[in-house]
């Protein structure tokens, strides 16, 4: 929050920067880098799933001693499935999405010169960077990276005898995640404090854009739930390295009885999912917030039911902390608990339905400006509904029994949190690129990117429900051991083809993104004719965001097409006219 200008060196400006705008770009670039790795891994294992015995030169080229003649080993298959999940959930959709946009937008949209603590913000990014580096290094461990699934259930994750990835690979995974959690806690605390304390004059909580509400509530969920994962990870480290028995008991492996006595893997499941389920919303809420903002701006209409939207964000956040047991209906947990969790889980459908209906109503009688960000936002609403609805099957303990851990689950959560959140992230990048880089992204490439991705995403995940309903378990290296599943082989080939199409489409995005940074058309100050404060700052970034006074706010952010105004947008800084009522 320094108004005085001290001389900035290359290092303080681009590397150890405390400016939230620079940190947000650092998050984005790191997130994109990790995303490339995560998506590329999915291409590799999709090849294996579709053509289990076939040799691929790309597998031979990238998997080193983990493959034989272009066919990957079962161990590395499980490892890349694990790392794909870890990277996409934590590094891309948590840090990459929330880190980027919370950092960029919180100070800009609430009217603050920077985060409450620029220094902590910088530390948060560099911890994230460090954890990314450790995760990437773990890929090169001799025995392979962690391979017990992204949920790292012990004993599999605790015993190197059980799977080679549970040796050094798992240690690095745990170290990386511990640092990651520290990073996200620092970030989240900063976001909460900033939103509560640094709002500009007139920026009441009920005048905050929904993006900020989403980031704010997300940060609260993060602070509540991430420490529990940290403790789960620490106890696992204790079991692995110091011989404690928090999660382990009565184990006989490779001809030998181990000393562990009295622990329970179910304890780990509870601790893991106490973070793991809120994590879904940590990923999803920022995407929904971004979508609210973009749909409203591009529909040239106020978001429908602003207060209901805030209410449902809060309701979802609250409920998200008491539903974790729906991941454990068949874990051996008491069936009565299953009943309770079914009840709380299906409750979440209510605020989610409210959100979906409100988005659709916002489009109604709008004047839709089909910018790439808008396409991704509409796409998000579609995948959010498609994926959310199958949650009614999985959240119902009775129905979960037979689809638990099958491809039905994979299809469900990829649509509702994977694809939806990544759409939100793309929407955000297209929309705020001019704010980040002072240039515009190419529109035509954006359109191609969206349509190919949209077709591919449904092409991958819609048929996937059916192979789950055919009873095919997830995380199978190959289905050739079961003649029963011979008829899903064709479906898997279709899915893989769509997956490759979708993966390839991301090259369009990467090309557009990186070249636009240098060659994109120069942006105007408020290219989307938006109401929010970030568009009142100069195009060229300055420390402190506004050259003079921070503008005061006089109205909510969604006065689009308000009767009585010449233009179809009214910036939050515009005072109310005589006799005008605030919406």
């Amino acid at each position: 929050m320094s108004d005085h200008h001290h001389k900035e060196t290359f290092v303080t400006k681009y590397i150890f920067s405390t400016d939230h705008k620079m940190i947000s770009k650092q998050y984005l670039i790191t997130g994109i880098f990790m995303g490339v790795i995560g998506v590329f891994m999915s291409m590799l294992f999709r090849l294996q799933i579709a053509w289990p015995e076939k040799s691929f030169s790309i597998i031979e080229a990238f998997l080193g001693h983990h493959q034989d003649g272009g066919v990957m080993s079962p161990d590395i298959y499980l490892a890349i499935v694990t790392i794909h999940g870890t990277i996409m959930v934590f590094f891309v959709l948590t840090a990459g999405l929330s880190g980027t946009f919370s950092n960029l937008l919180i100070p800009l949209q609430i009217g603050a010169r920077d985060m409450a603590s620029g220094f902590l913000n910088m530390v948060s990014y560099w911890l994230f960077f460090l954890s990314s580096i450790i995760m990437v290094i773990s890929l090169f461990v001799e025995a392979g990276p962690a391979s017990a699934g992204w949920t790292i259930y012990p004993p599999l994750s605790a015993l190197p005898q059980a799977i080679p990835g549970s040796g050094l690979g798992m240690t690095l995974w745990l170290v990386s995640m511990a640092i990651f959690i520290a990073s996200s806690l620092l970030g989240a605390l900063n976001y909460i404090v900033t939103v509560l304390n640094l709002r500009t004059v007139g920026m009441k909580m009920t005048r905050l854009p929904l993006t900020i509400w989403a980031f704010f509530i997300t940060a609260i969920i993060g602070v509540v739930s991430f420490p529990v994962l940290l403790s789960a990870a620490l106890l696992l480290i204790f079991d692995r390295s110091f011989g404690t028995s928090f999660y382990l008991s009565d184990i006989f492996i490779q001809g030998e009885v181990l000393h562990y006595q009295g622990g329970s893997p179910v304890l780990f499941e509870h601790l893991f999912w106490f973070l793991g389920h809120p994590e879904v919303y940590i990923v999803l809420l920022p995407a929904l917030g971004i979508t609210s903002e973009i749909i409203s701006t591009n529909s040239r209409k106020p978001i429908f039911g602003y207060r209901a939207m805030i209410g449902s964000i809060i309701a979802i956040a609250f409920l998200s902390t008491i539903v974790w047991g729906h991941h454990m209906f068949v874990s051996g947990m008491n069936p009565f608990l299953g009943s309770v969790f079914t009840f709380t889980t299906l409750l979440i459908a209510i605020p989610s339905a409210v959100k979906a209906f409100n988005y659709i109503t916002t489009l109604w009688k709008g004047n839709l400006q089909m910018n790439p960000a808008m396409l991704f936002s509409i796409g998000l609403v579609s995948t959010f509904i498609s994926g959310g609805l199958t949650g009614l099957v999985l959240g119902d303990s009775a129905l979960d029994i037979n689809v638990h851990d099958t491809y039905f689950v994979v299809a469900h959560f990829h649509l509702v949190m994977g694809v939806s959140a990544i759409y939100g992230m793309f929407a955000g990048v297209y929309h705020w690129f001019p704010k980040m880089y002072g240039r515009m992204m190419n529109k035509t490439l954006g359109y191609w990117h969206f349509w190919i991705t949209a077709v591919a995403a449904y092409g991958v995940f819609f048929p996937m429900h059916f192979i789950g309903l055919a009873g095919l378990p997830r995380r199978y290296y190959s289905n050739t051991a079961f003649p029963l599943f011979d008829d899903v082989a064709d479906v898997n080939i279709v899915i893989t083809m769509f997956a490759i199409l979708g993966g390839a489409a991301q090259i369009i995005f990467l090309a557009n993104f990186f070249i636009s940074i240098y060659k994109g058309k120069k942006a105007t100050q408020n290219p989307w004719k938006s109401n929010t404060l970030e568009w009142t700052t100069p195009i060229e970034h300055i420390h402190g965001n506004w050259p003079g006074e921070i503008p005061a706010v006089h109205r909510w952010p969604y006065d689009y097409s308000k009767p009585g105004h010449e233009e179809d947008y009214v910036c939050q800084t515009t005072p109310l006219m005589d006799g005008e009522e605030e919406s």
Partner: protein
Amino acid sequence: MTALLYILLAIVVAVAIWQIASILNLKSVIATEKDNNTQGILFAAFGIFFYGLMIFSFVKYSSILLPDSASVEGDRYDTLYMVTMVLILIVQAITQFLLFYFAFKYRGIKGRKALFYADSHKLELIWTVIPAVVLAGLVLYGLSVWIDVMDASDAEDPLIVEVYAKQFQWEARYAGEDNELGLANVRNIKGINTMGVDMTDKNALDDIPTRELHLPKGRKVIFKFRSQDVLHSAYMPHFRAQMNCVPGMVTQFAFTPSMTTEEMRLNDKTITKVEGINKIRAEKGEDPYEFDYLLLCNKICGASHYNMQMKIIVEEESEFNSWLNSQKTMAQVVQ
């Protein structure tokens, strides 16, 4: 080296894409009226693709789905599933239609002003209350099925079977004449006593260890699950049954088989499915497949997780009893 080539190739493609696009699109970066029109129409087209994909999948892939349930409890499961699925499809069809239709219908036109419509308590009340009521019904229905499936305490003369998991194999142990399983712990594993049965426990002597799971039709079976190393999950999809096997504890699931293996082979849906599979196998020159119930591992457990299975044979009670009587008891095996 080849890896580097692949990466270079991707970069070349990326640059090429940009070059082509910058020639095509030198000026405008914000959606014009023409773009709104094109993209709006594309949303309509995408809506058609979306419904097409849905209908195609239901028609084409219905043959790969699991056949009718082979357990009494599974029938209730299937009804609940159908009710839920119909509900989901109705909501899906309506909301997605509205979404794509609005995206098409209200595509931007220059000079038109959108309707300033920020709130309607009536509408919001409607779409809070309706989902709440529907969900309340679904929760109650679902829980009645759940309690029914999970509560085996009122079963009369159930068959008690232990299912034992280890990397990467299943074993089973029948409770024998006393219908009570002997104590067991991994610390007793020795030689042929692979499940660690405690031979000093008198209940253990008549237990019957097997490598194949036989179940009697029409009698409730209570499964007791154990694992000796990592988590496994005993998944019996044809019976709509699944429970994790957790080292250090005993978990439980129960169902009543309602169709013998023979009967299931003659079930219409099974016949269609098996025909489909055998067509594919014939093309690959593989032996024809005959339907069998299976127990699969459904919790990631290591390298051969994908091949951890056990055959299940459901037969009439008399056949089952004579099979069981022909098996050796623990006392006989360990001697």
